[in-house]
């Protein structure tokens, strides 16, 4: 899962990777686009809707933007395990528990794919984790909201993963090859996440009054934060001074935040109707002329407050992550010790 609401932070160190560049360049030059000038060659690749690969020359800002975005995406995956992890021990059946564990396991895996993709740009996983733990790289703000009831697990799958998929599918065509390929894998695996969430709510909505109320309460609390996941407005006048224009020119972003948000609303309203749940927006109405659902004003003050650290769970999420990392130190040490012993044994056997 993943949102698009990340604020931009200080750029990262992103050094070029070394290696057998000379020999590789010889091979790489046999390509459909040929140009002497690096920038021209880069632009031509983008214009031809070709992928940029790790050994290609790329502008520093392109590299920095990608490192920041992929790192934040990776962080979102692993922080995103926390709100749901909260319910693994209390899932209402063995079936639900197994599903929730499988889903959390997927999020961990998605984080790893993404850290690896970012590493092709010259940063390291350790460096990214340090920046996350220091609060210098962000993760999606949606995970700073609490999971108060079991129905929240359903709402996260349905709304949060639904919004994430809306964001992620276009990223499968992102101009940076390793990121695009990681996203293809993520999207394929994530297809069950949204359905399991919908299924939870589908069952609750047809259950007892108390269950139905619980489902409605979850929808009430998760609807607006899910819309915020697409990030601040970036079309019309709001396009001024955002990263959207540049990210689009670079082929990193394919649709504006506002377009994706509208698509999400259009997709989700009929699903809510099917569930028999109300979405907490009095302005929600079908617009015949536009052919879209109109929706009310998003509380951007709340959004910025959560982005800047004052959400309900910001401190808790980060603290939990730091603790998990430091308490896991012995596992990393033990694995290293085991590897060292194995290689010693192999040496002495040889």
């Amino acid at each position, binding site marked *: 899962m993943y949102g698009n609401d990340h604020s931009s932070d200080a750029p990262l160190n992103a050094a070029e990777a070394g290696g057998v560049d000379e020999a590789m360049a010889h091979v790489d030059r046999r390509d459909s686009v040929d140009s002497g000038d690096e920038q021209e060659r880069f632009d031509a690749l983008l214009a031809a809707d*070709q992928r940029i690969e790790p050994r290609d020359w790329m502008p520093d800002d392109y590299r920095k933007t990608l490192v920041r975005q992929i790192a934040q995406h990776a962080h979102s995956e692993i922080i995103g395990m926390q709100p749901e992890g909260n319910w693994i021990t209390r899932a209402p059946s063995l079936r639900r528990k197994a599903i929730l564990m499988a889903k959390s396991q997927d999020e961990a895996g998605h984080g790893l794919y993404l850290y690896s993709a970012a590493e092709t740009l010259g940063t390291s996983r350790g460096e990214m984790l340090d920046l996350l733990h220091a609060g210098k790289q962000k993760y999606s703000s949606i995970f700073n909201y609490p999971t108060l009831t079991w129905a929240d697990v359903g709402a996260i799958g349905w709304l949060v993963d639904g919004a994430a998929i809306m964001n992620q599918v276009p990223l499968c065509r992102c101009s940076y090859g390793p990121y695009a390929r990681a996203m293809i894998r993520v999207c394929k695996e994530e297809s069950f996440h949204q359905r399991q969430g919908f299924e939870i709510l*589908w069952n609750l909505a047809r259950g007892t009054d108390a269950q139905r109320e619980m489902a409605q309460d979850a929808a009430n609390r998760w609807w607006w934060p899910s819309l915020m996941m697409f990030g601040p407005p970036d079309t019309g006048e709001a396009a001024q001074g955002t990263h959207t224009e540049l990210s689009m020119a670079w082929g990193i972003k394919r649709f504006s935040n506002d377009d994706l948000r509208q698509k999400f609303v259009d*997709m989700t309203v009929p699903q809510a109707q099917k569930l028999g749940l109300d979405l907490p927006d009095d302005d929600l109405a079908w617009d015949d002329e536009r052919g879209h659902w109109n929706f009310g004003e998003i509380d951007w003050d709340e959004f910025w407050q959560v982005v800047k650290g004052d959400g309900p769970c910001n401190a808790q999420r980060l603290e939990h992550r730091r603790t998990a990392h430091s308490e896991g130190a012995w596992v990393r040490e033990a694995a290293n010790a085991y590897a060292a012993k194995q290689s010693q044994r192999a040496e002495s056997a040889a």
Partner: protein
Amino acid sequence: MNAGEWPLWEVFVRGKRGLNHTHAGSLHAPDATMALRNARDVYTRRGEGVSIWVVPASSITASSPDERDSFFDPAADKVYRHPTFYDVPEDVEYL
């Protein structure tokens, strides 16, 4: 390896931009640079690739065919990892 025999290299070719490198085959060569040039001549004579990786075959650790069943067994009984496992109404779009 017999004395004087060149080491074996595994060759991975990227068919075109945007695709993963995939395993194409292997070859012998005295060092990485020559392996790369040889790989170009052996595996991409008809423009099959835009990028090549060569990896010393001795550096590859592979899963054992004997352990195939037990090694991959943990994934076999987790049908809930597939979207078709879930019971949702069929007429809901985009789910």
